[in-house]
């Protein structure tokens, strides 16, 4: 299969080829790939791509999938509007 245009992380538009290339350079942890490629760093925080990247890491390192560190998910789990965080349901003070 041609993998150069398979987009794994849609938030940050990271392709499968890029992920494999950086794993090949020795970056074998999800959080490292995230910092280099921004994979899983966007608004959805890897809901779509994390499992795919972990599977690639498992394949490259020979470690079973459950032994691969899934990396960090940070709050808020879903994006929240700044105005809502600052003022709740209220309007900003005039």
């Amino acid at each position, binding site marked *: 299969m041609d993998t150069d245009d398979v987009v794994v992380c849609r938030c940050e538009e990271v392709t499968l080829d890029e992920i494999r290339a950086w794993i090949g350079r020795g970056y074998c942890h999800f959080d490292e790939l995230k910092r*280099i490629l921004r994979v899983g760093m966007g608004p959805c925080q890897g809901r779509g791509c994390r499992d795919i990247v972990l599977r690639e890491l498992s394949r490259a390192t020979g470690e079973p999938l459950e032994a691969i560190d899934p990396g960090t998910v*940070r709050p808020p789990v879903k994006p929240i509007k*700044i105005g809502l965080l600052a003022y709740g349901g209220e309007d900003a003070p005039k």
Partner: protein
Amino acid sequence: MSEKRAADAIIVGGGVHGAAAAYSLASAGVSVILFEREYLSSGGSGRSAAGLRQHFGTEVNCRLAKYNLQCFPTLQEDLGGEFDLEFAQWGYLWVAYTEGSMDQLKKNVELQRGLEIPSEILSPQEIKRRWPYLGVERMIGAAYCSRDGHINPHTLTMAYGRAAEKLGARIKTYSPVQRLLSSGGKIRGVEAAGEEWSAPRVLLTAGPWSTKLAATVGVCLPVTPERHNLLVTEAVEPFNCPMTLCLDDGAYFKQLPNGTFFFGRDDPDEPKTAESGNSAKFLEGVTKSVLQRIPVLKGTRVAHQWSGPYDVTPDHQAVIDWTPVEGLWVNCGWSGHGLQFGPSGGRLAKEMFFGEKTFVDIHSFRLGRFEEGDLFMEPAFI
């Protein structure tokens, strides 16, 4: 064949200062091993807001900052071009809300201009003219330098590490150092993963973790951790918003080249720890404060928050010096503005290793100043 557990120099800590030191030492032909407990940039470096500025209030920081800004424009290529460093110069604005803060900013700018740093004082009217989307209510004025900007702290650190590796340095990630090793008042190496690694020179660049490691050979560093929080928004159309720092409540914000915004805000109630964690009240406080200054972001979404440790000294100045243990030197205690000093830190490490005269006089960063009571406060810290 088993790996030789010896080198000319061992570096402990894979933040930007450790990685830059590995690069500049390896460039000079020194055999180097760097130990990092997780991955490069995983500590304070990668967690920073990564502002680049020349706005400081002490001469040594201004001079080093000027050098940093000379390096950044070509650094991506200098380090091999593999990593995108996202360097941008959208400026840095320090906003005063009291006459006292304004006076300090004027003093800082005078010092900077004397050193040929192109900073300037702006009135609220001028701020409104240049950046109409910024709220200027209650502002007295600001200090601004258009050459200041942003860099990606992760790729910066990793690019230094990668370039060092290509020059022969050994970068050991996921390899925590348990303790430093000395005998007869001289450093002889480190213990990492239960094994001894030897070197006649050891450089400690472990940020807030430096204190405990130095103590394993009896060196006392007055460096303590402080947790600080940041958030990042979803991306919006880039409009070159400068990094803006509000001196009334310590809130700051900036846009990154990919269109996202960072917000941060000082909170003296945050735990004094080097461990990361998330503070729920941070989100409400920082968004309330920042929205007053840039209301146009009201409908933009917060993507996530994180925290990272400062390595704080009593005068908010770094410690860069040889220690009483012969062969052991330190570079830590940057108190929140260290990331951008990576280029300077790397160069100083090489100069100190070879006993050369340093390119900027760093006598004031000496470790002995705390015992001597000769502190020199950096007024421009956040």
